């Protein structure tokens, strides 16, 4: 079929399987995972920018084009080192990881949970969105980073490179899958589910709830960062709109559509939603937002377990009551 889901979305899919890890298994609904994705993407973008070298339109050996025409005289300190691949790849992991760790450490320790956590994750990504829009920050403002030439010495547009990047994404997806399922199957995974279903009780039993949450949270942020790093060379641009809270919320709906609390669900959801999006925006552009909006409502109301759940219901002929699968029931009471 000539019409396929664009390969560029596979890193996205990978990152949201991690959203599912924290939401579906741990009960933390992050509305700001896009931020970690974008941070990883920016780290990669900075590396790719430095690789352009003198092939930029102004032929400046050090400064990226946007710095030249905005009259920057020297490279800001935080851009140093990004010409080296190992450093950049380290940053892809470190920057989202450290920010997530700090954020999580503060939040989980002071027991910010449920909707409060969702809202401040949104505040975090919104603050980053505003910050990266500022041209004074030195990340290219609204235009972001673009016009990449090559990666690790290979031309970025060449079919071979694209194939390799695609393969890397698939690999990354598989890896994410393996890591996630390892986490889920381990004792750790059982504790996470316990935290999701009864956080206080798990704490009373003697588990350090915040440590478990912090681990999964940081792990998922790192994976999101890596996914972002793989995404950028494939689409050829990274710009602050990736920080948009709406983008993070949309990723969450992919999980919900596919079926959360399962590992395959988010993948199916991502593919299905993106497929719909590509199709609608091509054929019936005006209808797209109606369809997306309705999808949000219908899935939360009638398909609490998503497509996977639907499949399960069809197979077993046994409808599961919605309450059972609710991952956030506990927080509800605490927030009310």
């Amino acid at each position, binding site marked *: *079929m*000539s*019409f396929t889901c*664009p390969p*560029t979305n596979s890193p996205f899919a990978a990152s949201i399987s991690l959203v599912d890890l924290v939401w579906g298994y741990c009960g933390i609904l992050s509305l700001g995972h896009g931020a970690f994705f974008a941070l990883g993407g920016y780290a990669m973008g900075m590396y790719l920018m430095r690789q352009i070298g*003198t*092939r*930029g*339109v*102004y*032929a*400046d050996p050090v400064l990226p*084009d*946007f710095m*030249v*025409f*905005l*009259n920057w005289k020297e490279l800001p300190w935080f851009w140093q080192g990004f010409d080296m691949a190992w450093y950049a790849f380290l940053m892809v992991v470190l920057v989202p990881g450290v920010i997530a760790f700090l954020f999580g450490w503060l939040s989980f320790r002071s027991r910010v949970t449920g909707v409060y956590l969702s809202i401040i994750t949104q505040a975090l990504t919104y603050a980053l969105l*505003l910050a990266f*829009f*500022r*041209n004074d920050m030195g990340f290219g*403002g*609204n*235009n*972001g980073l*673009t*016009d990449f030439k090559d990666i690790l010495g290979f031309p970025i*547009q060449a079919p071979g490179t694209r194939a390799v990047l695609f393969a890397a994404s698939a690999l990354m997806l598989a890896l994410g899958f393996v890591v996630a399922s390892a986490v889920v199957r381990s004792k750790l995974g059982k504790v996470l589910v316990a935290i999701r279903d009864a956080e206080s009780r798990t704490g009373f039993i003697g588990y350090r709830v915040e440590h478990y949450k912090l681990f999964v949270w940081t792990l998922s942020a790192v994976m999101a960062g890596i996914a972002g790093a793989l995404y950028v060379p494939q*689409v*050829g*641009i990274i*710009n602050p*709109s990736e920080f948009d809270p709406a983008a993070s919320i949309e990723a969450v709906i992919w999980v919900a559509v596919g079926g959360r609390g399962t590992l395959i669900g988010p993948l199916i959801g991502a*593919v*299905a939603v993106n*497929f*719909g*999006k*590509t*199709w609608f*925006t*091509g*054929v019936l*552009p*005006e209808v*797209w*937002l109606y369809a997306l909006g309705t999808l949000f409502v219908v899935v939360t109301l009638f398909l609490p377990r998503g*497509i996977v759940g639907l*499949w399960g219901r*069809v197979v077993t002929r046994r409808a599961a009551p919605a309450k059972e699968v609710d991952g956030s029931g506990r927080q509800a009471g605490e927030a009310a």
Partner: protein
Amino acid sequence: MSQIFDRRRMTLAAVLGALLASTMAGYAADDTIKVGVLHSLSGTMAISETTLKDTVLYLIDEQNKKGGVLGKKLEAVVVDPASNWPLFAEKARELISQDKVSVVFGCWTSVSRKSVLPVFKELNSILFYPVQYEGEESERNVFYTGAAPNQQAIPAVDYLMKEEGVQRWVLAGTDYVYPRTTNKILEAYLKAKGVSADDIMINYTPFGHSDWQSIVADIKKFGSAGKKTAVVSTINGDANVPFYKELGNQGIKAEDIPVVAFSVGEEELAGIDTKPLVGHLAAWNYFESIDSEANAAFIDGWHKFIKNDKRTTNDPMEATYIGFNAWVKAVEAAGTTNTDTVIDTLVGTTVPNLSGGYATIMPNHHITKPVLIGEIQDNGQFDIVSRTAPVVGDEWSDYLEGSKDLIADWRKPLSCGNFNVVTGKCGGGS
């Protein structure tokens, strides 16, 4: 296909796929020339770009009434990149490699243009970009029919100096590349004209900024230094309405501190009560109020096409008009829609613009445009108070450190978008 269909009957994806396949089957006709339209129809940019999509459809409709191009009808292929920058690239790829369009009209923001550039280069197609932008670019596959900074900003400042005796300048803009570059250019230009740094205030605000109280008060304060002050506004889109409302409410009249805007046209004014704003200015290359036969015919046809005689016209629409007609003329002249031939033929093509003159596509892929300065009227229209002879779009500004030595010329043998006249080399990039 049918096997797949059977197996996954239950899934949404397959149903969508089948629907899609049936629509795809419709695309087989070879007796038309396909024209891609790449404007956002949803998301934040829909507000501006939807009008341009309709404009292209209108122009295609008119052209088909005249018998099409090369004896074939034109067929529009409309896609929605949904104000999402990576999606722009994806949709561009779809238009070129899948729908096999001969030319694409599209993009509004610079970031969307930057996003699709590699695709147009790789697949070798033509993009007409119809919006004023910051310059600092010239690509073989792109034709820039909107204004470069020297076709808007500098004549506007000259007008204010001469007509209003302005000595003190507020450069207020939204924090993105176009205002940043324009203000850099203007700052250098003003300093070259002997304006001291103390008499220039630069202010940036985020997209959609809605609380203008403090900034308007600052402007007022800056303006009370005994010298005639003006505001040069590169404030973008949605932020303009609250900005002008605050100006009006704080009683800043055009006679006291005139504001000249580069991004405020008829469409933006449609959301504001313009009575308190009479006399504030805008610099464009086209105003709806232009008194010419071509313009009257264009507006008349537009109203009939869109079935609403209250719809305004604006500058990017004229830029689309010029680009479209230039493409038609070049294709007719070349006798083919072959990309390379058309690109070569387009340079030097001259077509009428809507203000009663002509626009010529220059070797740097920018066009000649007259600069018009208009004052806002109480009916939401502009009264043209100044008009220059056609100005050639300057892609590499003479007032920027990094680009003053660069020129672009896509004619053979130079064929270079960033030729450095000092080193004599075509500096990378392409």
